[in-house]
């Protein structure tokens, strides 16, 4: 359970939505994309991705269909639904506000008070 504990609750869902918003991806592709866009700073245990994917599908934020990967393997591809896109925007705004607030808070110096 060690690595997941490091990720803030809810951030995995946001990362998945963001990764998929750039184009339909299969599960492994999502992992690669997250690694790529986060500069390999965020690592997720591979299996832990799938419960999150199923949950997002059930919430109607993602839809899935079977397709063929670039190296000709059958795989399930995920893409955003309309409500998924809306949710991504909301979460991004929320995250940005939080991040800005945190950054401001943490960069405070004694003389500014």
């Amino acid at each position: 359970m060690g690595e997941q504990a490091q990720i803030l609750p809810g951030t995995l869902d946001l990362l998945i939505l963001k990764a998929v918003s750039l184009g339909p991806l299969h599960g492994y592709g999502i992992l690669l994309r997250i690694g790529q866009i986060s500069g390999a700073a965020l690592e997720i245990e591979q299996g832990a991705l799938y419960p999150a994917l199923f949950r997002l599908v059930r919430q109607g934020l993602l839809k899935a269909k079977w397709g063929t990967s670039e190296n000709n393997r059958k795989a399930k591809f995920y893409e955003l639904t309309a409500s998924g896109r809306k949710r991504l925007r909301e979460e991004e705004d929320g995250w940005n506000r939080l991040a800005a607030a945190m950054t401001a808070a943490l960069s405070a110096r004694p003389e500014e008070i």
Partner: protein
Amino acid sequence: MSLAASAYFRSLLSRFFRREDVAEEMEQELQAHIALRADDLERGGIPRGEAERRARIEFGARERYKEECHQATGGSRFEGLIKDVRYALRMLRKSPGFTLIAIGTLALGIGANAIVFSLLNALVLRPVNVPHGEQIYQIEQGRDRAPSQSYLDYIDLRDRNKSFDGLAAYEIDKVGLDIDGTPTQAFFFEASGNYFDVLGVKPYLGRFFHAEDEHGFNSAPYIVLSYATWQTRFHSDANIAGRVVRVNKFAYTVLGVAPEGFRGTELFFAPEFWAPMVDDEQLNGFNTLKARSNRGKWIVGRLRPGVTQAQAVADLNSVGAYLSKTYPSDDDGASFSLTKPGLVGDMLGAPVRAFVAGLMLLSGLILLAACANLGSLFSARAADRWREVALRLALGSTRGRILRQLLTEAVLVSLGGAAAGFAGSIVLLRWLSAWQPIPDIPINVPVNPDARTYGVAVLLALMSGVLFGIVPVRQVMRAHPYQAIKTGNNITAGVRRITLRDILLALQIAVCAVLVTASLVAVRGMVRSLHSSLGFNPSNAVQVNTDVDMGGYKPEQRAAMQRRLLDAVATIPGVSAAGYADRVPLNIGWSDSSVYSDSTTDFKPSNVAADANAYRVSPGYFEAAETALRAGRAITWNDTKDSPAVAVINQEFARKLFRSERNALGGHFKMWGQRFLVVGVVEDGKYRTLSEDPQPAVFVSIVQSPSSDTWLIVRSNRGTDELGPALERTLNGMNTGLPFIISTWDRELGTALFAARAASLALGVLGFLGAMLAVTGIFGLGAYTVSRRLRELGIRMALGAGKTQVLRAALGRVVRLLVVGSASGLLLGLAATRLLSFIVYQASPRDPIVLAGVVLTMMLLGLLAAWIPAMRALGADPVMLLREE
């Protein structure tokens, strides 16, 4: 919201049915992931095999993620349940002994309940099988709640009441029915013309008779066949309507056939046909319809919609007031009440209902005992699975999950037990429904189970499953993984304390002791009633039953015909005595005759001195029946129509009317509007049932008071096996055209013993079940205690403990529980025996033999159950045991 909910349910359902598909797809997706990852690794220069291995490792705990995926898709509840069931089945299969004992115990408990509930359902809950049967009520006399009414009173009630959509009268009777030349006895209903219309029954074939068919006495020579009779006696002849048969030699036309499910308005009695009551004289031999004092008809009616029972009774009583005023000599103080039909009003209804309710209570106790038994078994099992439970808790399972698991096991066991018990009870019920307890009379009890019975069985199963399933809850709640892993074996500290298991066992033993007490009281009453004086001796005597009217003889020929029969059988070799009577004691059906003191002139009901069982007997009857004459003389052939009417009375009659036997001789009393001279006194006997209190009885001369009913009693010193065929040859050789039923008196007596026998049998079976449960319960706990403490016992023996000490350590607790449970059960059982006294002969709770019997039985049961555990405890080998761990 509702849309979302329905979508959710649809997805649940589709997932439930396509579960395998979903799992398959999930598996494929994960496989694809691993393959893609392996492809990448392979491109990085790692050999394919190693790449795949590494991909799998990187993926992590695949089964766990799959489980989480399932939960994420929302199918977890159903799948969880299925998993629980699968796991429970696996666990149960792992301990087949436990499973078998548990299922067997429950099968007994639930089977017993299913049977008793079927009885309750058939006899009490289910209305008479006619359209809207719940509207049908039976009218009883308000005073003594007897169902019998006179025909004339019936006519008045029928025409003057405002509360019923018709009142119908009926009566059980028998005739000689002649279909193809040989008359046989047939039991049937004499019914008022409106009978079928009031009940709302439609014919299966042909038509029924109606009120319009009645045009005075003997005006409607029609019969309606029951479905069963049509099948057996008329070979399902589709053209039966219009066929002429002979009933007591009179020509009657078959009108039609009743539907299959309709067997009249009495539950126990299946008539072979119905005939109009106006033909009473032809059917019965004499006309019982003309006298208001001649009560013997039963009345049912359909209550008008919107009329309450109380309103109907008030209405009937206003008719009663009219009757009482208009016919004071017969209907003085007439009043009426209503009851459920089907069991001869409250006459049979009240005891049957009380007895079935009592049985239901006892079988409920059986099930409770079974649940207590299983509760302690499950709790012992939960304790033994401590380690498993602790391990699962340590691995992250929740307590709720483990409880659900245990409960699933319990409910599975209870459903299995219910299925087994119910299968057994269906077999028994089929047999019971087909059983005809009394030879030659179409009496039986249709108790086939219906949907309600099935429902009750399932409900009982689930309830008991939950009941004993929750017993180990506290244990699981207290379970702590750390402690369990540390000590390996826990709760050694609780040995001295009274645990829930102890209480359950004591409770169960108490319940079983109640059952054993009840059944011993019943059996004892049965034995005692067999040894009580009957007032006659049924051994070595044969009865011949006939009715001389069935041969078409005129009333004035009766006496001569009966005398001919008597003379003929008296010549059979070996016959030592013979006589006849119009009825015999302890046969089915009876009638009271009102007896007045000699000084009475106003014969109204309130002046009755005694209600006596009256028998018309021939000379020689007392010798044939071996009824002892205590004073005076018997009836002789010198008592003729021209001499004064004489009577022989029993001791109780003498006490009631004359205060002593001495005073009685030469005294007079009045009965049937006649004056009788007492010439003799005979011993008291049993007349209606074995469990009755002493009853007054009077025997008058059948020559002076003729009757066509004939019961020949023939006593032989050559045994009844030889006598029966000889009687048959002699009687059939006489060409009288009469149907004869010949059987030994012992066999006929089965009738009188029926109720007591059935009750004793039922109580005996329940007592046996209770005893079985006590044995398994004691055995279970004993064996469990010994196996848990085997090591300790071994150490004790190694340290020099004697056999007594080891046994005391091993089983002392069980024995104490046995004593406490038995004692409290015995006390309860004795309190409950009062309830049995109405059906069991002289059911006395303070009978020393019963007390001793219960104590002895419980001790034996305890010994039996503790034997194997005790042997095992004594066989504990210290060296072996110490080496084991």
